[in-house]
């Protein structure tokens, strides 16, 4: 079907805002989430808002983004960022907050400074949850980019879907849809494998190793 290269071309277009958006959401999200975890002041200001944002249908903001930033790359990148950020922030925050209190006390007992506490105990422990947050953020990013392409203006995969829909070429439309779902599923599966490899449960201390 679309082995004539149009599929590959479409993905090249689609993946651009997706990758940029995920990168931005990851850096900003992790930074903010970690700040929330380490500073009670930041937490106080941000937590209620972030909880609401995690539950909220952020997709409602997308028409607004279209209005503000037009129908180009920017609004699509922003759509990805807006959808992916809440889960990345919350997971980073929880990872920091849920540091094992026994280990923190041990560090203090052996005269660790606050900085050593953060670098040697809290961050390694939070790594697993932060990575899980990134994985979920990627999933949300895929959702964001599909909505963006169907809503804002069709390009890439969204274009293939809408075009084929409008000319009633349903097999092709179906194929395009299936392809994006498969790509999303494979990417997330790969991230899951990586997560399990980097953060096996025993190393995370889930069996009370420490």
């Amino acid at each position: 079907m679309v082995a004539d290269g149009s599929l590959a071309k479409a993905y090249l277009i689609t993946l651009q805002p997706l990758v940029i958006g995920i990168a931005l959401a990851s850096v900003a999200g992790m930074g903010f989430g970690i700040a929330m975890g380490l500073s009670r002041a930041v937490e106080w200001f941000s937590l209620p808002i972030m909880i609401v944002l995690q539950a909220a249908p952020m997709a409602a903001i997308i028409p607004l983004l279209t209005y503000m930033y037009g129908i180009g790359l920017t609004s699509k990148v922003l759509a990805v960022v807006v959808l992916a950020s809440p889960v990345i922030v919350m997971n980073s925050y929880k990872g920091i907050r849920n540091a094992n209190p026994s280990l923190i006390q041990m560090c203090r007992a052996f005269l660790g400074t606050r900085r050593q506490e953060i670098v040697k105990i809290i961050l390694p422990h939070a790594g697993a949850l932060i990575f899980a947050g990134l994985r979920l953020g990627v999933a949300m990013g895929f959702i964001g980019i599909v909505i963006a392409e169907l809503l804002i203006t069709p390009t890439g995969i969204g274009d293939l879907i809408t075009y084929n829909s409008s000319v009633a070429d349903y097999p092709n439309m179906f194929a395009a849809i299936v392809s994006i779902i498969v790509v999303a599923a494979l990417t997330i599966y790969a991230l899951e494998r990586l997560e399990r490899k980097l953060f096996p449960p025993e190393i995370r201390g889930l069996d009370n190793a420490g």
Partner: protein
Amino acid sequence: MILFGKKIPILFSLLVWCIIWEIIGRAKLSTIVPPFSAVIAAATAIIPTAKFSAAASISLRSFALGMGLALLVGIPLGVLMARVASLGKILGLWVNIFISAPISALVPILMAVVGIGETTVVVTVFLFAVFVIIIDTQVGIKQADRSLVEMARCFGANRRQLYTKVLFLSALPEILAGVRLGVIRGVKGVVIGQLLIAIIGVGELFELYSQHFLMEEFWALVIIVFAFAFAISEAVAFLERRVEYYASTR
């Protein structure tokens, strides 16, 4: 946060954000941000209108139908998949694919097959919510304490009693967690489904307001919908907390 030696509850930070919003709006720092008070005024203005209640009732109806279906299908399926290993493996693959997949990509198919209308939205809500309910139910049942099951059998429980009196209750914390996530996804499903169809419900209103640059109305609707999503997820969380007390001693 401690101000003047008194501990300020964290919810007050929302109040601070409202004040900041008001200031930004008054100072006209951005064309898309009207003052918070204007947004609230718009909210009180549009809620009693016929247009809004029509949009709200369509959206609520689709949401309720879709969620109801998701619960009716998801929970029993999750239980089955946990108890029948082969079913769990086969269906598990599909559930795991769809749980993080961009379901919104399926909406064009739905539109082609089912038409442009409420039914599509109901199916969208169903698809958004059902997978997380299936998985969390499955996990909950699987992790049901083996010794509780043995105990029940030992005291002569038949199959039905085992499921209703022991397994389901034991898994209830996980099931409710799944329902809460499902509810959040369901709301996203209503909004996204209606945005993509763009001629009914709150999705239509979002498009309308932003196209005509009615910013007060747009943000008012955002707050209303976000508040609804939050309220309903908190309602389920409340139920979750009611059963939490036995979660740790299972």
